[in-house]
């Protein structure tokens, strides 16, 4: 794809050690770009420096702050700011790609400290934030420095338009769609099964809503089973579940990428009952790529990803009765939904890294037109030049 190799710096605001959508997106993107022959350096907060991939530089230990209804592991402050400046100064980058620059994090600091071609990606789709109007005057001059903005979904783009009065290009998060082409149907997981993947101990992942919907589903489908994949303490979870329902749950623990593809292709219906805090819903794109029948809560990110229900079924978020109805209708008559799943599979190809990374690189190229690389703003400030100070 590229005619010339570039030096690209990517800033990830969230702790690299904690699994999350933004982190894995940044990791995949960095690896893809490196595969294309570019030099890529990622700056991210990290607890354990030793376990970082070669291309990641640690900016220090993240701190946990409550943000946007969830706990965010981010980093800021004077020491972090110095690290950011050092990294920018030493990197000799042609372009910076900042993720989620509108939250208090190293992305925002990097945007403040650097001058030159910068691209920002906005992940969050917040429905309302009352404090937003108060911080806008601080954010605006900083966010304005970005040569181009990317939003990962229509919902994220709208959030940006409302809060910061600026437009963005929509480029979705990427998946490795080819992995899901070769998914094998596993008979252990077929039948009237409800599939769930995620850290089920977190309430916002919504496994409780499936539990609450179960009695109603059993009335029509007495043999229904729930298959849960993902890390967590299964016994602790089952303790709070009605004893008569416990036998219907199977916990698979953490599964590999290959198993994940097979799992999604095999289950009767794949359910994402998340109650919020989701930026994109990459797992749904993967489920679609595997050809699963998908049921998801109608939170903004999922609504946007499934195109208001065109490629999967949406239920009213946190409404167990509605969820039960939607699951039953899919499991009772699978043939009626084959067409939708087929369409979803086709649609999921547009999230493949080959397509997504190409688009992101197009945006990079547009930002880099006629401009020299990244410098520190402090180098060009008049008074610093005057007193001969260099940072």
């Amino acid at each position: 794809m590229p005619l010339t190799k570039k030096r690209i710096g990517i800033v990830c605001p969230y702790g690299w050690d904690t699994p999350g959508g933004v982190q894995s997106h940044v990791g995949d993107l960095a690896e893809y770009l490196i595969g294309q022959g570019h030099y890529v350096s990622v700056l991210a907060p990290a607890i354990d420096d030793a376990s970082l991939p070669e291309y990641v530089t640690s900016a220090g230990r993240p701190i946990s702050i409550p943000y946007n209804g969830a706990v965010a592991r981010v980093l800021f402050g004077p020491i972090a700011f110095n690290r950011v400046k050092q990294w920018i100064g030493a990197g000799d980058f042609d372009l910076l790609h900042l993720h989620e620059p509108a939250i208090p994090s190293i992305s925002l600091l990097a945007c403040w400290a650097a001058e030159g071609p910068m691209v920002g990606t906005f992940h969050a789709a917040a429905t309302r934030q009352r404090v937003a109007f108060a911080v806008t005057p601080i954010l605006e001059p900083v966010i304005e420095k970005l040569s181009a903005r990317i939003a990962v979904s229509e919902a994220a783009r709208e959030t940006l338009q409302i809060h910061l009065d600026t437009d963005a290009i929509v480029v979705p998060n990427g998946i490795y769609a080819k992995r899901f082409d070769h998914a094998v149907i596993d008979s252990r997981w077929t039948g009237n099964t409800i599939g769930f993947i995620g850290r089920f101990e977190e309430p916002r992942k919504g496994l409780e809503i499936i539990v609450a919907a179960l009695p109603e589903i059993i009335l029509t489908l007495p043999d229904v089973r729930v298959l849960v994949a993902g890390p967590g303490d299964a016994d602790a979870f089952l303790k709070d579940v009605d004893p008569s329902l416990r036998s219907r749950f199977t916990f698979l623990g953490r599964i590999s990428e290959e198993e994940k593809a097979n799992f999604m292709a095999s289950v009767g219906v794949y359910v994402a009952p998340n109650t919020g805090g989701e930026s994109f819903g990459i797992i749904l794109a993967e489920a679609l790529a595997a050809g699963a029948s998908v049921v998801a809560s109608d939170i903004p990110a999922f609504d946007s990803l499934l195109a208001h229900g065109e490629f999967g079924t949406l239920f009213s978020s946190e409404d167990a009765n509605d969820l039960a109805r939607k699951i039953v209708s899919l499991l009772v008559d699978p043939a009626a939904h084959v067409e939708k799943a087929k369409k979803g599979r086709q649609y999921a190809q547009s999230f493949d890294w080959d397509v997504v990374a190409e688009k992101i690189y197009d945006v990079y190229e547009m930002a880099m037109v006629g401009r020299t690389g990244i410098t520190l703003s402090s180098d060009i400030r008049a008074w610093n030049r005057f007193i001969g100070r260099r940072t």
Partner: protein
Amino acid sequence: MSKYLLLVFIVALLGWYLSFSATRLDRLHHRVETSWANLDGLLQRRAAVAIEIARSEISDPASSMLLTFAAHQARDASVRNRSQAETGLTGALGILLENAQDFSTPNEQELLRELQDLTEKIKMAISIHVDSVNRTYMVRGKWLIRTFRLAGTAPEPVVYEFEGDVL
């Protein structure tokens, strides 16, 4: 005494804020230049591809004439008439491709693929450019910046009324 100190402080703060605003505005003017250079380059390439298409087997003589005319007009248009000329070219390409048969020759397929590629990029470039122009207008409109003439001699960015969908 403290009155004067306060005055000095206020003047210093104002000075800093003016310098900050001037940098901010300068950066925005820069951004507009960059985004325009990028969009302009892509549009030029599109005009070149359009002329290629006019010469190829895709196009019948009448459409060729129309297309060549539109492409040259788009290339030669002044900055202010550019938007209209580009829309004209879009229209000419649209008419041709709508009635087009399937093209089996590799050369023609290549041309169409290139056009499609460019269209995607132009859409992005327009969105980037329109955003930087809007931003610049907004900041230029602030009263402090108008009062102290921080925009200096930088020309006002031209607002382009591109149609949302180029193709």
